[in-house]
Each structure stands twice: as C-alpha cells, then as structure tokens.
C-alpha cells in the first residue's frame, strides 16, 4: 500500500506516526487536496466528538463502588488468619514439654499460653487496624475484649480450654509431688 490509500490510512492515526512518516505525509499533503480535505474532516469530527455533551456518571457511583469494595474486603488475612490456629499445635508442644520435665515446665506452659494469646491478638489487631485505617490502639485502650475479638472467640475458647487442662494437670502434678 504505497498510493493514495496509504496516506489516508496514515491520516487517521497521525498522532502515532514516526518523524519520518510524518514528514512523508506532510510532503504528500502539500500536493494532494483530497487528503487535505480528509485531514480536515477527521479534525472536525474529532473536535465535535470531544465537545460532545459530557455525560457524568451517577453521583452515587463512587460511593457505591467503595461501599461494595469495603464490604467485600477481609478485615485481615494471610498469615494473620493462620496465626490463631498456630496456638493449638504450640500449646500441645508445650504440654508435651511439661509432661517430660515436671512442675516447673508446667508453669512455663501457662505463661507460654498467655504470651501466645497476647502476641497473636496484638498482631491480628494491628493488621485489622492497618487494613481499616484505624488507630492501632483505640482511645479507650486495647482491652482483653478487643484482643479476643481480634483473635476470634473460637480460638480463645480453645486456648482457655487448653489452659484449664494445663492448670489442672499442673495442680495434680504438684499435689502428687508433695
């Protein structure tokens, strides 16, 4: 395509031409009234289309999109979701350690469980606060209820259950020792 049609095709995408192509097109335009007419037609159409009434999206579009996105996003996820589940195997490992090493180890189990719950709760709460752009610590302070809510009540129940079992075994072990 090197004839007239070639330049017509160039005209329709004049903004995309290289310098060489642009110069070649301009040289052709200088001697071709038909192509100059076509160029003017494209320019007129472009101006008309761009000046066309600017239909605005509904006012509520932005709010609706953001509200739908907000409702679909997880409060927290990834590792944070897995951490509460890590409490159970960690607790079992500590129980195993306690069974092997006696009363002192049982004390460390109880402390370990408390530390596990506190660290997990703090971590998950931090992720949740960041995801929701909330202050890390509420003005009222970060209470146990906040931590429990962040970790999940199921996990808290399991941890309390394991803690109670550990306490009973620890008590029995200490009584047996005496």
């Amino acid at each position: 395509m090197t004839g007239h049609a070639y330049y017509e095709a160039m005209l329709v995408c004049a903004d995309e031409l290289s310098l060489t192509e642009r110069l070649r097109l301009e040289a052709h335009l200088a001697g071709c009234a038909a192509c100059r007419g076509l160029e003017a037609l494209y320019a007129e159409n472009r101006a008309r289309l761009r000046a066309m009434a600017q239909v605005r999206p509904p006012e509520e579009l932005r709010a609706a999109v953001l509200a739908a996105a907000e409702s679909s996003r997880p409060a927290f996820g990834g590792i944070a979701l897995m951490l509460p589940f890590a409490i159970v195997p960690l607790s079992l490992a500590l129980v195993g350690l306690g069974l092997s090493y006696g009363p002192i180890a049982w004390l460390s189990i109880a402390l370990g469980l408390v530390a596990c719950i506190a660290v997990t709760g703090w971590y998950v709460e931090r992720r949740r606060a960041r995801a929701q752009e909330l202050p890390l610590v509420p003005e009222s302070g970060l209470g146990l209820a906040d931590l429990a809510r962040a970790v999940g009540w199921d996990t808290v129940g399991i941890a309390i259950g394991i803690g109670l079992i550990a306490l009973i075994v620890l008590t029995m072990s200490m009584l047996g020792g005496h």
Partner: protein
Amino acid sequence: MKRASVGLQALPLPTDAAAAGEACTELGQLVDHYGQSLFRYLVVLLRDSDAAGDCAQDTFLRAYEYLRRGKSVNSQWLYTVARNRAIDELRRRKREQADPAPIERQIAGDLAPSARTQAVERALSRLTREDQEVLYLAEVDGFTSPQIADMLGIRAGAVRMRLMRAHLRFRAVYGVEA
C-alpha cells in the same frame, strides 16, 4: 513493592489481602480518574445510562479484586473488562428482547446539551456499535490503534480501517442531523 500503571502513572500497590485499605485508596483514585470516561464509553456501547452505571460499578469492583491481589490495573484493562461486561449485558438484553430508550433522549435528560452536541449524539447513535466504539476510543479517549486492537481483539491495521470508515460515516450522518 509492586507498582500498578494507571494510565501513564505508576501507583504503589498493596502486596497482600491484609493491605486491602491501600487497594481501596487505589480504587478511589481509579474511579476519580476513569469514572467519567468509562461511564461515557459504556453509555455509547449500551445506550442506557442505568446499565452503564451498573457495568461501571462491576468493572471497578473487578479492578478492586485485582488491586487487592497486588495485580496491575491500567486503562486498557479497565476498558477491556468494561467492554466484556457490556457485551454480556447486550447478550442478556437480546435474550430478553429488552430494547433500551435511545441514547440521545437519556443524555438530553441528563444534561440538556446544546443543539449542536445533540446533533453529534444523534449522529453517533446512528452508527453501528463497532463504529461508535472505535470512534469513541480513538477520538474521545485518545487510545492508539494498537491499544484499541488489544481491547477489541483485532489487528491494528483493522482498527485503522474501521476508524477511517467510521469517520466517513459519521461525517455523512452528521451532515444530515445538523
């Protein structure tokens, strides 16, 4: 941190689901930047501002899902998703034989444009959807022929030919309407 391209700008992206707050911020920027042009494009395709609003919302929510997973979203991606969503809507209408009100009446109701812009709207609505689409993408939104080719799944040469024909048809119809 990965970066997403929004038009020619590169924006920071969240890398995991827990950073959904960042994705929400990005989404707000996308809606601000592309909301109007995308909505207008969907009105051109669907000739129905209500359906265009719904499709725009779906498109932005898909974008949010992508952003939340740390994927890149740019204008071509948005327009391609919007176009696919519009095609689904047109297929649904075809099945239900639902024919929306003419585009010019809805747009006139929205913004009461001048007689000249109404003539442009009417002329545009007399063209085929393919012609309207390629004219709108190239001349109003300023996409290049390779970009449009990617969106429409055709060759850039075919886009240029379609654009040339659309210009000539638009001019002929506009001459009658004006």
